[in-house]
């Protein structure tokens, strides 16, 4: 604490502009300077001035000259806080004292390290520092501001690149213009932005706004390109430059893309808008609603993605990516665009939680990559598995058909072995070769005779001739139907018979059959019929039985001449065909029955076989599953293949559900990864959020604690100031020492008296500064301070002087008291003293007056006394009775006058404290005897009865001899005076019960005189009191006052009872101290004793 006697503390704050370019702020007291005094008496607000300087790209500096102690540091702190927030980059502080030094932490904290602050002892140095070496200072706040976008961009770029590497185009959608941009564009964008940012930081030539500007331009260009592509068509040149060719994946998303492009275009324009300083009303009207809408879209996208609302993953990716992009753009805009409370709040939150958000994005990105990767692996596995099944099916089909063809060839061989084959031989051959049995689905083998119309009747005749019990059908053998065709293919025999129609049926009449047979005839090769109704020739049977046949032509002389080489030759040599019929249902059933059992049971996969020629479905594994084939989504794997054997063409389709064939568990892997990843993302985000919150809370807590402390401190300073003011205004010297006897308080009066300044004194051992001496000695008086430090209040000795700095001695008086802290411990002592020079002088003059008065008044009185006495004594001759009487009157009056002077002196001395009790041993009996002798003349003259009852056991009592004498004398004198002639006065001295463990004696003076009127009893101890009923009598009116004062000085008390015309009883009770040290008798008493 410093107590400076400073009457000029007042609130003061002056701000002026200085060239070159800094603000001078002079502060003192509670000032809050806000106005700059510009040149020519102009004024400008500090705020605006700083803004102006900043717009001129000048460093804003401030010279803070603290003229006087800024009364509380909070005021100075507020100054700096306000100015620091407005962008003051440098503050030079002059006029440093310890109050200001204590502000350093505040400065540093408040200014966020961007503001430099230095302390100087003089202004020149400060100005020098302010005006030179103005190196650039990067604003930390800006750095922080860009932290989130940078981290987010990196995270996004990682996701995009990861998507690119695993060839998941969905992931590349994380960049703006989502479905269309390729990684190259993303990298270009990122690199450009980063380069500009670095350029800005290093060279600081470009406005940071262009960091936003570049993406904005890219957004605009890209959106226009997307729109152009949509208008012109999908394969424009710009596509190849900017976009990947995965348009077909999003066949139905063209509308989305156009919508996105339009949105992007608007955003791009809005983004670039503030850059070219067209901050118009429409920006606010259009941009912010859109912004909030998109932020809402982000939330919705994330939520819907989490809820799986979208059936196509990519769309939620797009929504999410767009929203993230928008956040980035919004974020950037925050720093260049107009600021609205809600935006500010949202973005501040984003900025505060950038770490958590970044972590969340990175985790989410990794999750997505993992999910998509496993998903693709699962699909791949499923596709491979499906393909394998497909191959098996195809192979089985091919081999079955090939076997049929093989069988056909072997039968032809049988026919070629002999030129004529009888029906029974044919039958035997079929039976014995087990052809039908060995070829499932094969229903019959038939021999077809080739006929020309003219040969029909001969042929019919011949066959009828073969009729027997075994072949009764031949009896009615007739070729039918016969039409205008020039060739006839007559079903002559079939084994087993009657299956494929009636004998004699002309196959040429059926178009499919005719086509196949004719083709076989002409090519000499096996031909397939395509799907036919096997029951077609059996009129009696209307049920369709789908089947097919292979046919091979039989030529004459083939065993000897070989197969005919030309078509002509074939037509010449042809005599018939062997047909193998088979039922498709049985055949396919057999084919699939040879596939692994799980495929047949698995409803995850379907197989569809079509006849290529007719596109008729000839087989489906699951009848109700056909619709799957029509589905063009990428959820199912669809494999298509063609089988062709001997002109028989089949389309085979295999359709598998997603993840077909993937083992259980592995099938769920992508989902597990997704869910786990999302959970981990959430945990990581929340953890980081919590950590940052906790850190923030800690920081906040620390800040609050600091604030509280500073508030407390301020309050303490306030109190201190109050105390300071009180102490300063006190006329008495006040100083305080701590328990180490070091001075902690030194008020102005102390400074004046001692000659030392507070600065010199504070912190010093008090005895090095303040020398209290016993008057007239060199001995230091330290007792009273020592006593105070022991916890007792103590007074200086009356004769204490203070030795001042320049060697003078000033008489001082007063006291020391301990300082107790809140717990009652002694924390120091406070000493209050004052200069008593004048007091002493006054006292001396009073003393002198009293002495002089007593002397000067008494001298003539003595003369009158003595001469009257001598006259009365007859020393000047005998007196006449009258003369004697008159002289007696003079003598008595003179005596009264003497008494009056004595009483006045006593009163004066009592008032002046000159009659302080100085206890000594007083023999009470001696004293009374002496007084009685003195009173005798009055007693005898008034014929009074004086009774003396002394019962006290104390021979001596320890009290002040003069005071007790004064008391008893006055009481007796009073009693004698105010009691009529022949009255009785009784004096008693008795022991009374102890009070406060001290022995007391009680002196009672009782008379039966006039008494004191009841109405006046309360006044009897006042000065100059005289009872109404005794006014005619002599008396000074000081007696009772003296009695009471003297009694009190002895530590006793006086009481009385009185009744008018009955009498008065005074009781004086005084303590009896035992002290046998010395015995001094009453001198006057001694005289009378002798």
């Amino acid at each position, binding site marked *: 604490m410093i107590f400076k006697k400073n009457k000029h503390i007042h609130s003061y704050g002056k701000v002026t502009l200085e060239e070159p370019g800094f603000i001078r702020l002079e502060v003192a007291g509670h000032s809050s300077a806000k106005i700059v005094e510009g040149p020519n008496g102009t004024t400008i607000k500090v705020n605006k001035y700083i803004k102006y300087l900043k717009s001129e790209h000048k460093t804003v500096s401030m010279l803070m000259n603290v003229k006087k102690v800024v009364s509380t540091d909070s005021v100075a702190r507020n100054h700096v806080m306000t100015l620091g927030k407005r962008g003051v980059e440098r503050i030079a502080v002059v006029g440093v004292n310890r109050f200001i030094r204590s502000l350093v932490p505040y400065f540093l904290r408040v200014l966020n390290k961007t503001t430099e602050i230095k302390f100087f002892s003089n202004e020149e140095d400060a100005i020098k520092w302010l005006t030179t070496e103005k190196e650039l200072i990067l604003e930390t706040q800006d750095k922080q501001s860009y932290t989130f976008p940078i981290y987010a961009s990196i995270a996004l770029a990682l996701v995009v690149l990861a998507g690119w590497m695993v060839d998941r185009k969905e992931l590349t959608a994380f960049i703006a213009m989502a479905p269309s941009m390729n990684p190259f564009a993303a990298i270009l964008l990122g690199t450009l932005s980063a380069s500009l940012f670095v350029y800005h930081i290093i060279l600081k030539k470009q406005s940071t706004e262009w960091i936003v500007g570049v993406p904005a331009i890219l957004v605009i260009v890209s959106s226009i390109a997307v729109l152009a592509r949509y208008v012109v068509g999908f394969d424009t040149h710009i596509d190849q430059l900017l976009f990947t060719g995965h348009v077909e994946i999003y066949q139905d998303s063209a509308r989305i893309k156009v919508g996105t492009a339009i949105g992007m275009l608007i955003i791009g324009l809005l983004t670039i808008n503030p850059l070219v300083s067209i901050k118009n009303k429409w920006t606010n009207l259009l941009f912010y609603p859109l912004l909030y809408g998109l932020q809402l879209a982000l939330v919705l996208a994330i939520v819907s993605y989490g809820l799986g609302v979208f059936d196509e993953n990519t769309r939620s990716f797009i929504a999410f990516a767009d929203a993230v992009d928008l956040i980035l753009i919004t974020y950037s805009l925050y720093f260049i665009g107009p600021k609205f409370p809600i935006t500010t709040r949202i973005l501040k939150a984003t900025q505060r939680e950038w770490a958590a958000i970044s972590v969340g994005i990175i985790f989410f990105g990794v999750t997505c990559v993992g999910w998509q990767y496993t998903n693709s692996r699962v699909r791949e596995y499923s596709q491979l598995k499906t393909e394998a099944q497909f191959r098996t099916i195809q192979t089985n089909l091919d081999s079955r058909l090939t076997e049929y063809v093989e069988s056909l060839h072997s039968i032809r061989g049988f026919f070629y072995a002999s030129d004529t084959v009888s029906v029974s031989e044919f039958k035997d051959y079929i039976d014995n070769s087990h052809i039908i049995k060995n070829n499932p689905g094969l229903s019959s083998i038939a021999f077809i005779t080739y006929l020309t119309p003219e040969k029909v009747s001969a042929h019919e005749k011949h066959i009828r001739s073969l009729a027997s019990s075994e072949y009764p059908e031949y009896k009615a053998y007739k070729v039918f139907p016969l039409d205008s065709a020039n060739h006839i293919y007559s079903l002559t025999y079939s084994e087993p018979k009657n299956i494929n129609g009636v004998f004699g049926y002309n196959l040429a009449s059926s178009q499919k059959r005719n086509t196949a047979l004719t083709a076989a005839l002409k090519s000499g090769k096996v031909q397939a019929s395509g799907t036919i109704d096997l029951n077609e020739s059996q009129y009696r049977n209307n049920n369709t039985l789908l089947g097919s046949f292979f046919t091979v032509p039989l030529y004459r002389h083939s065993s000897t001449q070989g197969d005919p080489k030309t078509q002509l030759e074939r037509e010449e040599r042809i005599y018939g065909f062997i047909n193998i019929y088979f039922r498709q249902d049985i055949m396919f059933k057999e084919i699939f029955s040879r596939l692994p059992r799980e495929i047949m049971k698995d409803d995850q996969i379907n197989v569809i076989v079509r006849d290529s020629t007719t596109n008729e479905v000839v087989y489906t594994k699951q009848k109700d599953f056909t619709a799957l084939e029509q589905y063009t989504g990428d959820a199912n794997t669809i494999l298509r293949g063609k089988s062709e054997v001997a002109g028989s063409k089949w389309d085979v389709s295999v359709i598998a559900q997603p993840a077909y064939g993937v083992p259980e568990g592995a099938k769920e892997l992508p989902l597990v990864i997704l869910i786990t990843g999302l959970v981990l993302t959430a945990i990581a985000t929340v953890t980081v959020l919590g950590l940052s919150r906790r850190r923030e809370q800690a920081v906040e807590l620390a800040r609050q604690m600091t604030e509280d402390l500073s508030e407390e401190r301020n309050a303490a300073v306030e109190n201190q100031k109050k105390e300071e003011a009180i102490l300063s205004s006190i006329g008495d010297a006040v100083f305080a020492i701590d328990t180490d006897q070091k001075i902690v308080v030194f008020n102005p009066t102390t400074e004046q008296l001692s000659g030392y300044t507070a600065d010199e004194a504070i912190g010093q051992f008090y005895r090095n500064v303040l020398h209290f001496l016993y008057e007239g000695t060199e001995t230091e008086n330290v007792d009273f301070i020592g006593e105070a430090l022991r916890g007792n209040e103590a007074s200086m000795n009356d004769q204490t002087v203070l030795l001042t700095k320049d060697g003078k001695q000033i008489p001082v008086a007063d006291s020391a008291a301990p300082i107790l802290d809140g717990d009652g411990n002694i924390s120091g002592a406070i000493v209050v003293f004052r200069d008593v020079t004048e007091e002493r002088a006054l006292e001396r003059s009073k*003393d002198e007056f*009293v*002495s002089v008065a*007593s*002397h000067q*008044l*008494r*001298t003539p*009185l*003595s*003369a009158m*006394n*003595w*001469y009257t*006495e*001598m006259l009365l*004594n007859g*020393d000047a001759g005998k007196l006449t009775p009258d003369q004697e009487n008159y002289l007696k009157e003079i003598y008595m009056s003179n005596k009264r006058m*003497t008494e009056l*002077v*004595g009483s006045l*002196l006593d009163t004066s*001395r009592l008032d002046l404290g*000159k*009659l302080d009790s*100085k206890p000594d041993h007083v023999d009470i009996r001696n004293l009374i005897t002496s007084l009685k002798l003195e009173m005798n003349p009055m007693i005898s003259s008034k014929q009074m009865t004086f009774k003396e009852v002394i019962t006290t056991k104390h021979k001596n009592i320890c009290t002040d001899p*003069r005071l007790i004498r004064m008391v008893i004398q006055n009481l007796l004198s009073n009693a004698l005076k105010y009691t009529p002639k022949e009255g009785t006065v009784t004096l008693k001295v008795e022991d009374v019960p102890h009070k406060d463990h001290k022995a007391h004696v009680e002196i009672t003076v009782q008379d039966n005189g006039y008494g004191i009127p009841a109405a006046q009893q309360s006044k009897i101890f006042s000065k100059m009191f005289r009872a109404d009923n005794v006014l005619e009598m002599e008396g000074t009116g000081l007696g009772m006052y003296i009695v009471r004062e003297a009694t009190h000085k002895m530590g006793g008390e006086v009481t009385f009872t009185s009744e008018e015309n009955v009498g008065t009883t005074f009781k004086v009770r005084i303590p009896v101290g035992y002290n046998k040290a010395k015995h001094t008798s009453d*001198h006057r008493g*001694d*005289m009378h004793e*002798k």
Partner: protein
Amino acid sequence: MKNDKKVLIVEDERPLAHALEMKLTSEGMMTSVARNGEECLELLKENTYDVILLDMMMPVMDGFQVLQKLHNSNKDVPPIVVLSNLSMREDEERILALGAKDYFVKAETPLAKIVEYIKNI
């Protein structure tokens, strides 16, 4: 009890000195009067006295100085009875401390008392 005691009256107040002189002389004593302390000391150099009646407040040299000097001297000093109108306790104490035999407040002490006291010395 001798009544022819030689008494030195040191008193600057003429009426008082005269009264004392008259009274003591009438009682048969021999008196000398000194007007101040110096005269008192002068007289003491050449004469011997049985009693000194000493006033305190005197010009030139006051009673305190006289007491002080006599107190400090090695000579035999006759009993000194201080007759003064000073009645302060400090004065009284100081007077007694300086070797005065007794002390009386003049205004409150009848001549008869003084005479009797001197006679009793």
